[in-house]
């Protein structure tokens, strides 16, 4: 450690501040703090390792899958080489068919022909069986291979199939992103819009954003008065009420969602009550579940605490004398709220809205349970591709787009409101 005298001890050498014994001040400072820094780093190493192993690496791998899939290229080396040598639009010659048959035979032998078929099937549906059946018969095929394959199935001559095989012959491809954006490549490799009946992702992205915005707005409207009440009540009472706000946090998400199913379904509590009160007829029970309404109601309830908590933490320290001052200066209670109270709660509104919006953009379980067909969000489709269609690359591309969207929103928020105005608690 270097002692730095404050009075007359510091000197100037070549324009640099130095310590009493002539060392440059910056160097002395870095040296003095190095030990403390190393110790501090040691303390966070377990956390860092945990985050890297369980979070950064898997997510990185998954995102890598969105641009990399070697299901075809790794198992079909000869035809992939032929694609490398020729250019898009070249008609396949006999050599190409020979390479294809050799690869299919080898893949069938190695039992990887299914993987190859699946990879091609992602781009052109109905082609998986083409490869597997060709694989079963590959032993029996004889030259000329073109005729032999076309005898097996006329689809082998389809230029679209060859276009797709050319595009998957490279392990790296942007095709999954194109698919996630409702785009596709035609046989010449040009980007075109997907057929109209296949354009579902863009619509789902829009729906996800719109429903998230709506849920965020509803949460704000509901949470603001609650948070204000919590903030102005004496601490003993507000703590009691705070437990009621936090109670949902301590209940399983699944339980909360299913209890909404009990409430909302056609024979559920709300409908039964309304029928009993004569508000609606027994035949015209209201559909509140398995549609967007179900998703909106249940998610608003579940995400409400995320709005209340930041609002509360911003409102609590606001001194009541601000509003009083405004009132004494001649403002009506509405003006005092609009001009003095509301602006001071903006950091809480921003934080709460950002939290709820980001959470709802990626919400999965609630829409899956109560959303029906019209209440599904983009995350439900990601889950579908992860679990059912097993097209992980497409799932990763969709997830990456979602992440990019959220980051753009975050950036916009920073530009418009400023991230340092955010107060999360």
């Amino acid at each position, binding site marked *: 450690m270097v002692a730095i005298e404050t009075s007359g001890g510091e000197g100037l050498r070549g324009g640099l501040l130095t310590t009493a014994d002539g060392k440059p001040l910056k160097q002395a400072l870095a040296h003095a703090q190095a030990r403390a820094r190393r110790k501090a780093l040691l303390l966070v190493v377990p956390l860092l390792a945990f985050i890297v192993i369980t979070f950064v690496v898997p997510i990185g791998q998954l995102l890598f899958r969105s641009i990399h899939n070697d299901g075809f290229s790794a198992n079909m080396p000869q035809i992939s080489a032929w694609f490398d040598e020729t250019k898009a639009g070249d008609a396949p010659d006999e050599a190409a068919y020979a390479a294809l048959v050799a690869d299919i035979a080898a893949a069938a032998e190695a039992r990887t022909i299914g993987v190859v078929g699946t990879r091609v099937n992602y781009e052109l549906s109905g082609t998986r069986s083409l490869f597997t059946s060709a694989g079963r018969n590959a032993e029996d095929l004889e030259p000329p291979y073109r005729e032999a394959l076309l005898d097996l199935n006329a689809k082998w001559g389809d230029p679209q199939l060859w276009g797709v095989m050319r595009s998957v012959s490279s392990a790296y491809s942007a095709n999954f992103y194109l698919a996630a954006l409702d785009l596709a490549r035609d046989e010449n490799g040009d980007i075109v819009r997907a057929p109209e009946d296949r354009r579902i992702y863009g619509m789902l992205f829009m729906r996800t954003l719109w429903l998230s915005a709506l849920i965020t707005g509803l949460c704000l409207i509901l949470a603001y008065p609650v948070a204000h009440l919590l903030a102005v009540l004496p601490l003993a009472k507000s703590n009691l009420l705070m437990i009621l706000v936090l109670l949902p946090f301590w209940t399983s998400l699944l339980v909360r969602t299913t209890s909404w199913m009990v409430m909302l379904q056609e024979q559920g509590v709300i409908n039964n009550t309304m029928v009993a009160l004569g508000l609606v007829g027994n035949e015209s029970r209201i559909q509140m579940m398995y549609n967007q309404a179900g998703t909106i109601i249940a998610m608003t309830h579940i995400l409400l605490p995320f709005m209340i908590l930041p609002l509360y933490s911003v409102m609590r320290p606001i001194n009541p004398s601000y509003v009083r001052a405004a009132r004494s200066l001649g403002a009506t209670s509405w*003006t005092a709220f609009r001009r003095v109270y509301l602006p001071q709660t903006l950091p809480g509104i921003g934080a709460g809205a950002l939290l709820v919006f980001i959470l709802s953009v990626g919400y999965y379980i609630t829409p899956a349970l109560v959303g029906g067909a019209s209440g599904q969000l983009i995350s439900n489709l990601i889950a579908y591709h992860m679990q059912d269609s097993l097209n992980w690359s497409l799932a990763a591309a969709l997830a990456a787009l979602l992440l990019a969207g959220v980051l753009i929103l975050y950036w916009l928020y920073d530009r418009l409101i400023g991230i340092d105005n955010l107060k999360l608690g």
Partner: protein
Amino acid sequence: MNVSTADAAFVEFDRVQKSYDGETLVVKDLNLTIAKGEFLTMLGPSGSGKTTCLMMLAGFETATHGEIKLAGRPINQVPPHKRGIGMVFQNYALFPHMSVGENLAFPLEVRGMGKSDREAKVARALDMVQMGAFANRRPAQLSGGQQQRIALARALVFDPELVLMDEPLGALDKQLREHMQFEIKALHDRLGITVVYVTHDQGEALTMSDRIAVFNDGRIQQLAPPAELYERPNNSFVAQFIGENNKLPGIIEEFDDKKALVRLATGELIDATPVNIRAKGQQTLVSIRPERVEFKPEMMPPGIHRIGADVLEVVYMGDIFRTRMRVAGSEDFVMKCRNTIGQRKLTPGERIEIAWHAEDARALDPM
């Protein structure tokens, strides 16, 4: 200032009571009239009800009973924003998201004043508190004293006739506080506004006020100009609360209108002025200001009773000597003597005799 006549009443509290919980009264039967142009201070310890009174006048609390009038008009039902009362808060309450200029323009804006008028008035108000160059700053960029000035300017910018101040100088350091006291007082004199000022600092109250209302336990204990309050306290609480004070408990031996003879617990007799004495043999607490105690025989009035004192401690305080003595069994009897040339120096352990003018010792109710 002579102000107690009813027709001069600008602000009037008429038998006002206030309870928060329905079980205890925070303000008990308050009757108070404040004249136009007066500087009235509500002084008292925390919890004495002074701030509650101010809040009722501002309209942030409602009186449980009784009536509050402003310029002859009952204002119990008038919402705060229609009372037209300027108010300075303890924490200044400057709106943090507005600049200084916007803060000052706020009361004018909500009154629908045009932009050019607004700007002129804001500039004039800022000049009034010597803060003209700060219109574009944010309150957080100002020091405590500067924020205080802005709060003052904001409370005055819409020309209210009555300004309430709730411990406005509480957060400032001593030197700044004294300077601001002077400035507030000067503004009051110049603008001719009526000021109701709440504080627990008796020095502040004595310096600034025309009259002081000393609050304790929800009641006004004494309402008087500063000098009268200090020199002629009505009861033990006021005597204790304002300034330093010696108290000697005893029993009334004899008394008439002008003079009372009090026998202390240790048997000595002393002279005092009866204040709230009703009968012979009554318990009393005699209060004497430390600077009114004499120990030089030539300064004592003739024929006065003297009392023995043991000097315990002499503290040099620059302008005065503060001497702590044992008098009638009590060890915290204090005498203050001016530090003049030729002043006789006392030493601890010395035994002296002390006395005082009977007018300076006030026989009050026992606490």
